[in-house]
């Protein structure tokens, strides 16, 4: 007995493994990435430290260290051993260098002209202006756009640059110059502050609920009920027709819609003689785009509800229909008093299942409008995808994308729990009260 108890667990182990590998891990990783600023710029491995235009801007903006930022952005000229050695290597006259060292070692100049002036003031100065320029270039010092592997290297370089930093300044410096990813909650702050987020949210709600109510549940019900009252052959035919979009490959299916809507497509061709300008009907206006998006999704989405509702209606004993008939119910009354009450749970099921799947599906929108025109049909999942995985400029924001995805995951889990409560599985699975 004890063994058989474990046997079940063993048999379930592959399933657990699948759940962990293909569900939990992605969710956890999304959760982790959502709290980072990973992007193409940071890479997904570690980074280095670099003083750049943008990091100095950040130093000014975030840490109010504009003085330092200004200095670090500049090029200075310092007469140091390194420069002198390099000049010796280049074959500059030793006398010149000795004199330069004696007179200026350790001095810095803000301007090139100042160094050149210093060199010119030497007794043993190079003869040509070109040589002077060349020599002065060897003392050019800058920390700009140089990658340092560690912050120690960076600080050493800055030190040498002649700008010793305090501890607080160092912290700020390493913060702004680090080019790798760091953990941060900025993604969520950004999400809240961006006006686009609200637009996307409204788009998503509109998309999900209109498609759900009009097609995935509403139209599916209409189909299921009307085929119920047909004879078996026509009912089967109608149901098959509505299954076609579902079994057509999505790319092909959307392509057909696009062909329908193109400026040289069906609609334009047919409406042309009626005086309508040929145009891309799908991307013409946001309203048109939405109409197409909802139609495209709805035609596919209605079939599942239709199947579930049809089989639920079939499961109603025919005697109930007979009884209601002799009780005087016409078809509308049968639908209202017999069919719909019996479909309560299928409707609830489809509603919840389809909310979740509409919430996360964006493939048809991506294929049809790519969120256009002008982001009018961009829904949350699509934004996530575009931000994290596909961007015209090639700058992918993994961290921000993951944060967006995390919101979807949280909403999804919350809705699932809510629906489970609504379904009230306890009463559904309760033993019948009649023996």
């Amino acid at each position: 007995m004890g063994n058989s108890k474990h046997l079940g667990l063993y048999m379930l182990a592959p399933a657990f493994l699948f759940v962990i590998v293909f569900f939990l891990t992605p969710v956890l990783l999304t959760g982790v990435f959502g709290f980072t600023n990973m992007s193409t710029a940071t890479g997904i491995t570690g980074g280095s430290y670099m003083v750049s235009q943008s990091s100095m801007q950040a130093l000014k903006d975030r840490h109010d260290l504009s003085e330092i930022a200004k200095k670090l952005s500049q090029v200075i000229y310092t007469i140091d051993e390194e420069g002198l050695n390099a000049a010796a290597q280049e074959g500059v006259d030793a006398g010149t260098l000795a004199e330069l060292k004696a007179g200026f070692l350790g001095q810095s100049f803000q301007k090139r002209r100042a160094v050149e002036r210093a060199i010119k003031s030497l007794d043993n100065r190079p003869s040509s202006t070109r040589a002077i320029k060349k020599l002065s270039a060897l003392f050019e010092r800058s920390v700009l756009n140089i990658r340092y592997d560690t912050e120690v290297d960076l600080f050493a370089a800055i030190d040498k640059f002649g700008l010793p930093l305090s501890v607080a300044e160092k912290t700020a410096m390493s913060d702004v110059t680090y080019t790798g990813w760091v953990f941060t909650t900025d993604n969520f702050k950004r999400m809240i502050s961006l006006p686009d987020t609200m637009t996307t949210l409204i788009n998503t709600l509109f998309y999900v609920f209109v498609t759900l109510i009009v097609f995935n549940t509403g139209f599916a019900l209409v189909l299921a009920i009307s085929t119920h009252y047909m004879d078996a052959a026509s009912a089967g035919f109608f149901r098959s027709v509505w299954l076609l979009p579902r079994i057509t490959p999505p790319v092909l299916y959307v392509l057909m819609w696009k062909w329908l809507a193109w400026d040289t497509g069906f609609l334009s061709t047919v409406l042309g003689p009626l005086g309508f300008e040929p145009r891309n009907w799908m991307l013409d206006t946001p309203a048109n785009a939405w109409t197409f998006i909802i139609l495209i999704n709805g035609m596919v989405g209605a079939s599942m509800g239709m199947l579930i509702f049809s089989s639920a209606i079939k499961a109603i004993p025919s005697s109930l229909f007979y009884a209601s008939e002799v009780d005087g119910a016409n078809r509308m009354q049968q639908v209202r008093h017999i069919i719909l009450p019996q479909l309560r749970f299928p409707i609830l099921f489809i509603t919840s299942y389809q909310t979740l799947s509409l919430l996360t599906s964006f493939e048809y929108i991506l294929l049809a409008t790519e969120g256009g025109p002008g982001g009018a049909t961009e829904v949350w999942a699509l934004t996530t995808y575009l931000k994290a995985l596909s961007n015209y400029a090639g700058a992918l924001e993994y961290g921000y994308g993951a944060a967006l995805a995390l919101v979807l995951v949280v909403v999804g889990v919350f809705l699932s729990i809510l629906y489970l409560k609504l379904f009230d599985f306890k009463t559904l699975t309760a033993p019948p009260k009649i023996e």
Partner: protein
Amino acid sequence: MRILLDNFTKSFGKLTVIDQMNLEIHDGEMIALLGGSGCGKSTTLFAICGIHKVNGGRILFGDKDVTNITSQERNVGVVFQSFALYPHMTVEQNIGFPLKLRKEPVEQIKRKVHEIAEMVHIEVLLHRRPGELSGGQQQRVALARALVRRPDVLLLDEPLANLDATLRLEMRSEIRRIQQETGITAVLVTHDQVEAMSMCDRIAIMDEGKIVQITEPRDMYVNPVSDFVAGFLGSPPIAFLEGRIEDGKFVEPSTGVHMPLSADVATANNGREVRVGIRPEYFQPGNGAMIKGRVSFIEAQGRETLYNVMLPDGNILRSIQGSHSPVKIGDDVEWGVDTAHILIFGQDGLRI
């Protein structure tokens, strides 16, 4: 209300289930459609209530031809074999449903539902759902729903088939009581001859879509028109012997059993091959024509005891006896047949 089926024909595709049936149900009468499974009883019932469209003939309610009227407009009450209560409605809503569809005022519906619930004794169940009721209670609700709008005819399709034995007995008399109290015309479909005999004013016995005989229960029992009817009615059932009429007697050649017959039957059919039906109550110790056999089976039914007696040729006669006799299985007995009550049928099954 009187119901008339006039040459009513019903077929499903190529299969003709009922062919030109004629049946008149008198006003206020309860009639049984009795027959084996698949003989077309439910089909007939569903044609009367309009669920099935007929393929030929007419159906009249009173003098009104309802053949082409939908079931919604026929004003019939039907109790289905499975009761067909609406599972999502309370008992009260179930019963009130036909009235609600007619848009009767809520108060009036409530009053009528309570009246009828009282009549079928389910006042206390009104707020339950069908799933919370026992079989007998569901039956009563179904009955109430069928009766609440005072239908022209009450149709019952095997109403007792889904109940256990004691409930069946109780509901048998309940249904009859309610039918008599309301005076409604009723059709009871059943395959159980006891139900048909005990509940109905008349029985129409059906075989393969035809009404074989229609008469009062007692008369059908005593004067069956065919061996089919004789075999269908009576429990324990009638037993048959095959033989020939010779010289005023029925003779079974293999065993030599012979029974004297009434003179006019015997002379008219001399030499004819016949089947003789003997009911268990007419095969008793001490009766006239003696038959020898061996007791092969004994069933104590309480008040009475049933004996199966096997004749030498393997035929079985049944005897039901009130007093308990000391006979055991395997005993040889010689009991007599009351020849005044034997039923004689020709080879075609028809009564002679």
